[in-house]
């Protein structure tokens, strides 16, 4: 009896969580997919009517804006965060004196919730209260920085706030990665007279490839999850110029009683996530099989 228990105890302990995940995550994903094929409005209906919700979704100009914004925001956010994070990490790696303090300062924004970040940046970027007003009071009367209220540029303000929040975290990831590079190789390269820049670009950065991947995954999921940042910073505005699929989904589900639309937009979001995650998983599994 105890032998059997000892052999199966891990399965028994994990069992409840496993079942809960199957039911509440995958079960409800399946439920959402079902609802996305029905004409549900206020309450869920279960008669399948075909792809009409998806047709309505892609006919809607607001969804077009949301998807464009997802790609603009996602691409710029991930790229700039990684670049800034790497730069900051390399600078901090130069064995400077107050490294500990600087590291903490750069990492602090990550501790703030996105709502606080959004609200603070909303005040900073407000033309009448923030940067534009400050520069004008200092005498630059022609200074203009009204991206926040400009429908064409508002999404870039979301990028600014997001990058400010996340680059400290990316910096911490890269700093750890830089420190883990084998010091012998670097010393050998320095002895050979290789310039510092070349050491970084040819030796250290390529050896940090796994860290780039982890940073990418973390940033990508932060980008897709960005609901509270947009709501706090612009409220989806001006008009709906900074709408993202997540805010679109929320509006359809809870403000407009149009569950069918919300479900179809959620499934599309999931497909976008899969498009990013599945190749990564595939490459990981293949690498394991090769070993």
């Amino acid at each position, binding site marked *: 009896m105890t032998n059997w228990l000892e052999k199966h105890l891990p399965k028994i302990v994990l069992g409840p969580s496993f079942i809960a995940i199957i039911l509440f995550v995958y079960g409800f994903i399946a439920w959402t997919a079902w609802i996305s094929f029905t004409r549900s409005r206020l309450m869920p209906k279960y008669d399948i009517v075909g792809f009409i919700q998806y047709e309505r979704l892609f006919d809607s100009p607001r969804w077009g804006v949301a998807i464009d914004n997802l790609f603009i925001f996602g691409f710029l956010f991930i790229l700039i965060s990684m670049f800034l994070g790497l730069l900051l990490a390399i600078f901090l790696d130069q064995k400077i004196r107050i490294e500990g303090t600087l590291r903490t300062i750069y990492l602090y924004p990550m501790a703030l919730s996105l709502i606080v970040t959004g609200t603070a940046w909303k005040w900073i970027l407000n033309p009448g209260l923030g940067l534009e007003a400050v520069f004008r009071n200092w005498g630059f009367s022609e200074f203009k920085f009204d991206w926040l209220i400009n*429908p064409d540029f508002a999404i870039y303000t979301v990028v600014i706030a997001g990058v400010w929040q996340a680059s400290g975290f990316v910096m911490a990831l890269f700093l750890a990665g830089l420190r883990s590079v084998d010091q012998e190789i670097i010393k050998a390269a320095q002895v050979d007279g290789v310039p510092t820049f070349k050491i970084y670009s040819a030796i250290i950065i390529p050896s940090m490839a796994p860290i780039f991947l982890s940073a990418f995954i973390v940033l990508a999921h932060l980008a897709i999850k960005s609901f509270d940042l947009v709501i706090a910073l612009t409220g989806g*505005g001006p008009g709906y110029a900074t709408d993202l699929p997540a805010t679109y989904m929320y509006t359809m589900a809870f403000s407009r009683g149009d569950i069918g639309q919300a479900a179809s937009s959620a499934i599309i979001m999931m497909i976008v996530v899969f498009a990013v995650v599945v190749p990564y998983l595939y490459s990981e599994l293949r690498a394991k099989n090769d070993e």
Partner: protein
Amino acid sequence: MFKKIAVAAIATSLTISASVSYAGPKAEVLHWWTSGGEAKSVAVLQKEFSENGGSWTDMPVAGGGGDAAMTALRARVLSGNAPAAVQLKGPSIQEWYEEGALADISDVANKNNWSKVLPESIAGHMKCEGKWCAAPVNVHRIDWIWANASVLKSNGFGMPKTWDEFNATAKALQAKGIIPLAHGGQAWQDATVFEAVALGIGGANFFHDAFVKLDKKALQSDTMVKVFDQMRIMRGFVDKNFSGRDWNLATAMVMNGEAAFQIMGDWAKCEFLAAGKVPGKDFLCASTPGEGFLYNVDSFAMFKVKGSDRQDGQKLLAKLIVGKNFQKVFNLNKGSIPARTDVALNEFDRCAHVSAADMNASSVGGTLLPSYAHGMALRGAQAGAITDTVTAHFNSNMSSKEAVAMLVKAIDNSK
């Protein structure tokens, strides 16, 4: 020993059965009136209910203009345990009726002569397929224009009677450095201004055809193009920082003379009164240029509940809501006017008197119309489609013809 246990068991069961017997009318009420003045107003109903022997279970769910409350409601209905009364308004009432969730309170309505004391179009919203299913609490008027009295007087202007007059007044004030229109760039505020302009330019029949019947001819007409033209002109009258501003901050701009006008519903009056301003002296209220009255009626929809105490509680609640006392006290606190037409208005201020007189006149004249921007005329998806178009046009350089095309497409898409 056994006898002692038996006696104890019988005694306990008797006490339990005694407490399960009829305990008086009960009502569980779901609402989102959680801010200062609103919470005070709900407390009035609570007090009256308990004075009449009922026990009230409050279910306040704050925030989001009712979004969170609607989510809580959906969960309760799905689990089969709906609250007795829910703060719902407009077509949502009929939408919930179609889901089979509402109760029939026609007996209360007929006993208390509701059809005689409520205006016809308002009574229509409270009925589901001819049977009464909701009780109206108040009538908010949407198409008000508020002005700073001294700004207008010192520049020699009166309240505009036509949109052309408004444009001329606004241009003159703008030249003097005063912001003509205080506005908050949130979708619902854009929609509020839009429907006031549409009513003024198109008239009551156009408004009804376009925003209640969603008639394609009206939506594609030249009148609609003219409405969007006027919206483009209005866009030039708002200040640079209007994006995302809350409505009460825009009211504050009118109060301190920074701006001259605001187009907002009658809840703006509460802001003025709370700051100690006197209607007629410090601020002026008038209907926006045009014939008609756009209303927003808050109401409690009665959901199907089980148990005679809950059903009695529901009936008592419905009776009290349309009762003269509650209608008077609630609306004094909230800034709206009673839905009931025979309530004495001597304690209400000037603006409320104008509103009530206009409501009766427009009810008789057939120009008493539901507001689309505040969820009275259309269901969520269609109202949302119109608002999306209005706000996209207001915040861009879209031409009026493009906006009309987008409007028609959006409404087709939302059906």
